């Protein structure tokens, strides 16, 4: 029998236990990957292709405070600004949904297409959308989810605004970072609200990414000491500002992660020592016939490492497959969007599995090393 065969036979001699050990490692690593992916989802906003060229301008007070429409002409004249569009969150509910999974924004259609250049859409549909004041552009994800067709009516009940929208779907788009959003004419919203002359935010495209810092300070300076001071920032830092709002939740999930890992260690270590304790006598025989401590340690390590690795493979691979196949967006009603298990997460979980294999081997190995051959042979169970 080869050494490897010996190790394999040993690991599987108690099939039930091997299965349960692998199972518990797999479940725990599945959980670990899930939690790490959750943290990633909450803390690392996805990056759009054109994000480096885009700026977001909001009222310095807060996102809830509108900006005057008259800022547009000043923004247009700031050097480095290629295109500006108003961008106002409507916050409507679709059908009878309590929480609608897609956001809706009022924009200036012509200006909008100059700011968001990376989304793919057919030119004919864009033209039709621009031409129809009550038309809207709907992301492909939303189209698919609600089984909508171009030409359909889209009714939205306002929660932020005291008015309802009756839109007609004129076109679709895809290839943006979040293909769910609905865009419609700002003029239509103004009409319904009696034209208060305000917008939610401005979204801007700059000429070059390295000039965006200058544009940001130019914008902030322009509206300094006016009744509506602004905060301009890159799209990335705008998205990051939401992360800070999560507050302590991130820390709480992280602590849960460590408890899961700790529990996992505890249980696996105990299983391994159970497996070794059971064959103290055999190990003593091995020692008696001339195997060294180092070799016996290798046997134990290889066995526990093998079991942990197998569990890790099933748990990590299973998590990647499970979350990849599941429509998380639909299940969480749009709360989680991507929930992508990235290689980095998998690698970190694999490291935990490997560590687990090594740590579980240490205790039993020390016990074996400490026991003399005679003592070992005397052990009963």
């Amino acid at each position, binding site marked *: 029998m080869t050494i490897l065969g010996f190790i394999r036979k040993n690991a599987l001699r108690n099939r039930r236990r091997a299965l349960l050990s692998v199972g518990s490692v797999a479940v725990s690593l599945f*959980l670990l990957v899930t939690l790490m992916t959750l943290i990633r989802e909450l803390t690392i906003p996805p990056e759009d292709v054109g994000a480096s060229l885009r700026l977001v301008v909001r009222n*310095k007070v807060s996102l*809830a*405070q509108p900006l005057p429409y008259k800022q547009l002409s000043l923004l247009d004249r700031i050097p480095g600004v290629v295109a500006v569009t108003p961008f106002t969150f409507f916050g409507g509910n679709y059908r009878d949904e309590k929480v609608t999974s897609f956001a809706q924004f009022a924009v200036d259609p012509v200006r909008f297409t100059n700011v968001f250049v990376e989304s793919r859409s057919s030119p004919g549909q864009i033209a039709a959308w621009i031409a129809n004041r009550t038309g809207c552009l709907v992301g492909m994800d939303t189209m698919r989810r609600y089984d909508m067709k171009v030409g359909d009516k889209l009714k939205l009940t306002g*929660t932020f605004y005291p008015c309802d929208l009756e839109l007609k779907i004129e076109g679709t788009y895809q290839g943006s970072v979040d293909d769910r959003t609905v865009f419609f004419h700002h003029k239509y919203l103004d009409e319904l609200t009696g034209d208060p002359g305000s917008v939610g935010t401005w979204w801007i495209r700059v000429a070059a990414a390295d000039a965006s810092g200058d544009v940001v300070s130019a914008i902030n300076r322009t509206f300094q000491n006016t009744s509506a001071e602004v905060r301009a920032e890159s799209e990335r830092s705008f998205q990051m500002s939401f992360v*800070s709002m999560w507050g302590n939740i991130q820390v709480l999930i992280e602590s849960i992660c460590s408890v899961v890992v*700790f*529990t996992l260690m505890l249980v696996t270590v*105990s299983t391994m020592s159970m497996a070794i304790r059971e064959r103290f006598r055999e190990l003593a025989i091995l020692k008696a016939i001339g195997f060294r401590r180092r070799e016996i340690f290798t046997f134990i390590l290889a066995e526990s490492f093998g079991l942990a690795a197998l569990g890790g493979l099933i748990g990590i691979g299973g998590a990647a497959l499970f979350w990849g196949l599941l429509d998380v967006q639909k299940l969480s009603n749009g709360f989680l969007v991507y929930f992508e298990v990235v290689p980095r997460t998998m690698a970190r979980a694999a490291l935990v599995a490997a560590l687990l294999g090594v740590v579980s081997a240490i205790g039993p190995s020390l016990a074996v090393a400490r026991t003399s051959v005679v003592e070992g042979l005397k052990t009963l169970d």
Partner: protein
Amino acid sequence: MVIPLRYHVRNVVVRWRSTVATLLGIALVVAVFVLLRSLAAGIEKSSAQTGDPRNILVVRKGSQAESSSLVTREQLQALQYLKGIALNAEGKPLISADVITLISAPRAGGTGEANLLIRGVTSRGRELRPQVHLTTGRWLEPGKREVVVAENLARRFAGLEMGGTLKAGMGRLKVVGLFNGGGSAYDSEVWMDADEARLLFEREMYSSLILRPIDDDAYRSLTNTIESDKRFALRAEREVDYYAQQTLTAVPIKILASLLGSAMSIGAVFAAMNTMYAAIGSRTREIGTLRVLGYSKMSILCGFLLEGGLLALLGGFIGVAVSYGLYQYVILRGITFGTMNFQSFSETIFQFSMPPALLLLGLAFSVVVGLIGSILPAWRASQIPVISALKSL
């Protein structure tokens, strides 16, 4: 049927070395489950404890939060002379209009920003909310740019301490007092004068109305009048009921608790199974002896189920004790947690809440894990043939 009770109970105690890891594993699973649930319970509790049962809250139909509601000045004018509204000591109707908005403010310790919920109130607005008590400083003066801040919030944001300044664009708001909202949603708010708020944030409209009817009959007639008038398009309900429904924020945490609870319990079941199988494997002879002594197969089965359940219950006790200890520590130290409220988009402060039912749930959870984990091993134990069991080493 007789179960060798003493034998099984003694086993859990005497052979603790082989079970301690499983015990702790179950303890940790229970602790995580109970703590997450108590987190969700804490968030729900702060909204459930908000409001005075005598008050009616009026918001725009279709709005999902007070902050996205709009009430016009005409509506206020029309509503304040309705019959059935209680009068205060000065003979004025107890009705108040609030202005609610957000200010983005830096967190204490320079870790980013979050939104603060600003509530513009009138003096009667304060009268209508007896939950709110001033603890430090003085109350704000109408017509001045002054704010009073919830104590718990003041600790979490830079510049919100007593005497500090809150920036709102060009405006500067001075913190003149701190209040305690008695564990309600007001504990996550900053209050200022309603008219000052309308000026500063250029608001023509109010956000919500709060009023107090004389009695239950007046409550019914007032809500009826307000809701049925098509011109208003307003929704009126008891303030406590309105807040009790604002629980969206707790939903994801509850989902997380269930997901973690179920996944970790599968792991715990595996661990329990492993332990029980090992226990039975090393006690084959003892089982044989018990059978010879006259215990039936059923007794053996139930005995091992009992042992597994007991083992898990011990783990459950430890888990519940750990989470309760942590809860007590957090409460005693006055530690609060904050996250984003999904309805108002502002920072909401909450504490763990651990009702006794939750502790019992944690214990029940552990017993179920233990029983499921021992079914198969216990079955196996009961099926061991007596003769070979006695022969085994």
